[in-house]
């Protein structure tokens, strides 16, 4: 049986089609469902082996990238998404999907040891208990914000998996991935140095922007295309089953898509690992 992948579609999602194709090529059985279909309760996340939040502009990103979808996730699907994450099944968020996971507090995730604020640090004396299930949104210490150059950009970048990442299933990706970014708010930023140190110490950095030889981008534009702290292109949770990244490996799954006309560095490897671990 091919592992089943639930691909979520919020109004404004647009890279679901090619994400489904990438999952298929990698040996998975993808199904695209609109959030409204999931809310009709005919389908449950738990019925799938893997979950994918694809790219796009959910709700037009009108209040900031992914913010409204993150709210949906926490108000309508809170129990389902956390049960799925806690079950250890793989979750992949790409671009807007990554932004949603971060803004919903699922990535890096406080429940499983990710960096979050303590009650003392909450603004205006709020407490985690009082803010209830929305608490994870307000207490996060990482974000994806406006690109350093202040505009949407589309360009190809090189990515390297962090070999020590908590997401061990990314291990087989020993080669760089070459694929496009296409976003206006992909700049990964942290509240303070401590949050960054914690991400590093707990091996929550999953992908970094590098040059075509695998050397760190070192913040140099356009190798690091958006000004992300520590060249971070993607992160994972402490358990390692939830991974999010800004670039689009689903747009490079066969050689003919590669603008340099090379046969290697395909994004398909990531989807193979994703399906394999499902």
């Amino acid at each position: 049986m091919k592992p089943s992948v639930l691909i979520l579609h919020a109004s404004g999602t647009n890279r679901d089609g090619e994400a489904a194709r990438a999952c298929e090529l990698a040996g998975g059985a993808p199904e695209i469902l609109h959030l409204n279909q999931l809310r009709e309760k005919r389908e449950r996340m738990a019925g799938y082996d893997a979950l994918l939040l694809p790219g796009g502009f959910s709700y037009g990103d009108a209040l900031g990238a992914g913010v409204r979808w993150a709210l949906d996730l926490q108000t309508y699907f809170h129990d389902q998404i956390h049960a799925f994450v806690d079950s250890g099944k793989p979750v992949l968020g790409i671009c807007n999907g990554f932004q949603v996971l971060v803004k919903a507090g699922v990535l890096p995730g406080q429940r499983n040891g990710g960096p979050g604020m303590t009650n003392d640090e909450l603004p205006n004396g709020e407490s985690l208990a009082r803010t209830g299930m929305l608490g994870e949104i307000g207490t996060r210490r990482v974000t994806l914000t406006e690109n350093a150059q202040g505009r949407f950009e589309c360009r190809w970048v090189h990515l390297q998996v962090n070999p020590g990442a908590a997401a061990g299933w990314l291990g087989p990706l020993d080669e760089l991935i070459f694929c496009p970014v296409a976003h206006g708010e992909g700049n990964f930023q942290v509240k303070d140095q401590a949050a960054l140190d914690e991400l590093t110490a707990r091996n929550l950095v999953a992908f970094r922007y590098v040059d075509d030889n695998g050397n760190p981008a070192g913040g140099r534009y356009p190798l690091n295309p958006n000004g992300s702290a520590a060249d971070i292109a993607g992160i994972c949770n402490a358990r390692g089953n939830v991974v999010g990244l800004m670039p689009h490996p689903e747009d490079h799954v066969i050689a003919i898509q590669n603008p340099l006309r090379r046969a290697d560095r395909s994004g398909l490897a990531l989807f193979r690992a994703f399906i394999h671990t499902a």
Partner: protein
Amino acid sequence: MTVRIEVRGAHAATTRGILRNAIALGINELRACTVSRLYFLEENPGAELLQQLCTFLLADPVTESASWDVRPSDKGVHVIEVAPRPGVTDVAARELRRGMQEIGLPDCDVTTGTRYELTGDVTDAQLHLLAEKLLCNATIQHFRIGPIFPQFGAEVVGSGLVEEVSLTRAMDDELLTISRERLLSLDLHEMHAIRDFYIDAGREPTDVELETLAQTWSEHCVHKTFRARINFTHEDADGAVISRTEIDGLLNQYIRAATEAVYPEWLHSAFVDDAGIIAFDERYDLAFKVETHNHPSALEPFGGANTGVGGVVRDILGVSARPIACTDVLCFGPQDFPHAELPPGILHPRRIAEGVVAGVGDYGNKLGLPTVNGAVLYDAGYLGNPLVFCGCAGLLPRGTHPTAAQVGDLVVALGGRTGRDGIHGATFSSAELTHETGETAGSAVQIGDPITEKGLIELIEAARDEQLYTAITDCGAGGFSSSIGEMGEELGVDIELTNVTLKYPGLTPWEIWLSEAQERLVIAVPPARLARLQELAARWDVDVSVLGRFTGDRQLVVRYADRIVADLPMGFLHDGLPRRKMEAVYTEKKIEDWKIEDWVSGNGWSDKTFTPSSLQSSIFNYENLLLALLRHPSIASKESIVRTYDHEVRGGTLVRPFTGPGMDGPTDAAVLKPLGTWEHDDAFVLSNGINPRLGLCDPYAMAVSVIDEAVRNAVAVGADPDRIAILDNFCWGNPTYPDRLGALVRTCQGCYDGAVAYGTPFISGKDSLYNEFNGKPIPGTLLISAIAIAPEMSKVVTSDLKAPGNRLYLLGETRAELGGSLLFAHLGLEGGIAPAMPADPLTRYRALHGAIRGGLVQSCHDLSEGGLGVALAEMCIGGRLGAEIEMERLIIEDWIYKLLPWHKEDADSESLPPNLQSSIVNLFSLFSESNGRLLVEVAPEDADAFEQRFEDDVALALIGKVVDAPYLSIRSGGQALTQLPIETMLGAWSGEIQWRGQHDRES
């Protein structure tokens, strides 16, 4: 009580673009400018809930902070606040309101704004200047120096009000006054036809009827000029008549006639629907359409371009296709135009360009459509009237587009709600712009909402596959009046306007009927299918309203609360428009305006001064000329614009806007592989041709040249020259002037001859006339967009040089055609011969295509503006490889020499020294813009096979080779003409025009 929430960045970021634009306005005193977002709630939910709202929805806890009091501004800090006018689409406000409900806040009206804090010693007058010229567009926004007062909702005026217009006894001047005051854009003949109809009917028209007639009869909707009978006089340069012709409609006689003449079997629909349709593979067809949105973009660049994309995407939905790619071609005034010289009433061309580019990118990116092909041109002729061409291609399973509504079917509106936006768009686009247009036609401008349109895309695909509708049309110019009026032409319809979902109350019946609110489609639904349609629409968050039904009595009946407000026979609505008779005159330009002898002596030379060194330091310094052309805004890299468009989404872009190891070399056309068709090897190509400079020199030559350009661009990447279809988009001045219309006639004649010679049918097109500002027309502009099939996607070719040692061939003969060229524009010269159609172009393109299919071509690039010199430079830049070229190997048409003085019978050839003679030939060879030419890179081992593919009578010359050296070297005989480092060329091409958005930030 109203609450005001301000969200600011934790690290104050200053906005460089604003400072730079302020300096351009002459305000040098501004030191810093920070921007924050404002949200206003009509009711205060209390501090606790406000805190939650800010934390969860409005302010990013890592990078931003929120407050909900009016913050006193710091000393020395000036504040300008800007907010949308009521009724203007505000997606952020809508999403905020939905989010509030989701969190559990009490529902109330909300609105948004922007706060600018400006530091520096600026005066009140300067603050107003900044607000008016830079930060606020009065068409859609209002501002205040200091905290702004939010405006909720829209003012309510009497609804249900229908006026009778006294027409039957009106005199001619009164008829014209009615037409002018109601923005009907109807002339006296047309007003007479309407008056006579109502005299026969024995009553006066209602305002709903009169407005419906004006929309349906507008230039925008029925193309009065392109259908008119024209008396055309063609004169030579001295005013002597060459010919007089009576033209039975430009559209019939030239455009459609060309399609009829070439009609290939793969053409499935031309001119009958919202978009043209050709075959793609065994299962699927491709739809393609290009629209213009010029006048709205002049007034509100972001919204105008935004809704331009939205409109053309709906044209594709209007043939039941799934939109899969976008194109954009933009024409702007000079970006460095002095503010002080700007005529009143127009936005600065830089502000227009920034807004248009942002608007195009915003819509396409948010719909998830790759914007893959286009062009950006700069010319003083577009100062008051920019051109914005938006294109869209779509995919549909063959035979799935239904076009026959049945009696009893329901008239169903889908998508956005109806407001007072965009009223009179169709008639507004059929009038000239003046400095007052912005004030009188503000309501014609709309802001887009791409996410609502995205829902329509998903819904239409699903509804089409389940066959839930029997007819479909885009709701564009003229709103329901035009879409429903058109859809019901054969059957008749009965419509109830109170069933229309409104954004806010208070619209009068004619406003509802004419509103051009965006993101709406109309479909015909059999009653039994309605429930399923509503179910799917709920899934995709699309509003559905049933407006009426198809009756079968061929009558247009419109009701408001059951009261009939319009009752018109479809026959009069669609066939009652009198056909126009127009006069056109075209006078040929004088080729001899440019005499080489005058030009040489004009440069201050006598025959004594021609030494090799004086030639090098003169106009014949090829290096300087080439660098100047590479730096020209129309040639220079558009990377800073194109990078803001997603050209990768959907994963099917095989040849993208950039190529080469640095991924910054220009490509000739886009190659796309539609998602869902990866099981076979066919891909398709999008390309374009445009050259308004040529049109000023010779409009006929412009037409054949831009058809050639679109075709050779497509062929250059691997398109089959026998599978190319084209679209025509004319942007012209006021055609009631015989000279404007005369040039348009010549262009259409060129279109016919070109389309027939290249075997490329026109499948759709559009004309945008009356592009004038304060009585001055734009340069008559023809855009040809091509869609073509590239069989074998693995064989597609890009323009970057691939490997040292490869040979470089020039296909096609070079002629002395510098009329209308970029070189002449750069040198300020007029006259000269414009490029003609090459002899038998298809033979060479077929041979080249055979070579590409045979895998014999490593790279290929077309020669267009700037000729051979620019094309070579671009190939070197793309590949980061050098080339060595020998000019003496060029194949030059014999008559190039006849132009030169020493070949004229009456000229004394001895008067020009040989080194000057060869310099002039080299100048033509390097920069002539003759059509039908491409540069081709071929590996040495493939050279024989490549050459054998071309018949002896095809001009093919081996002119040089690719070298592993960082320069472009051009020699002529023993003499080195240039040796330009690639870095220098790259610097000129990419460095000078750095487009920057207004919202650039520096932290």
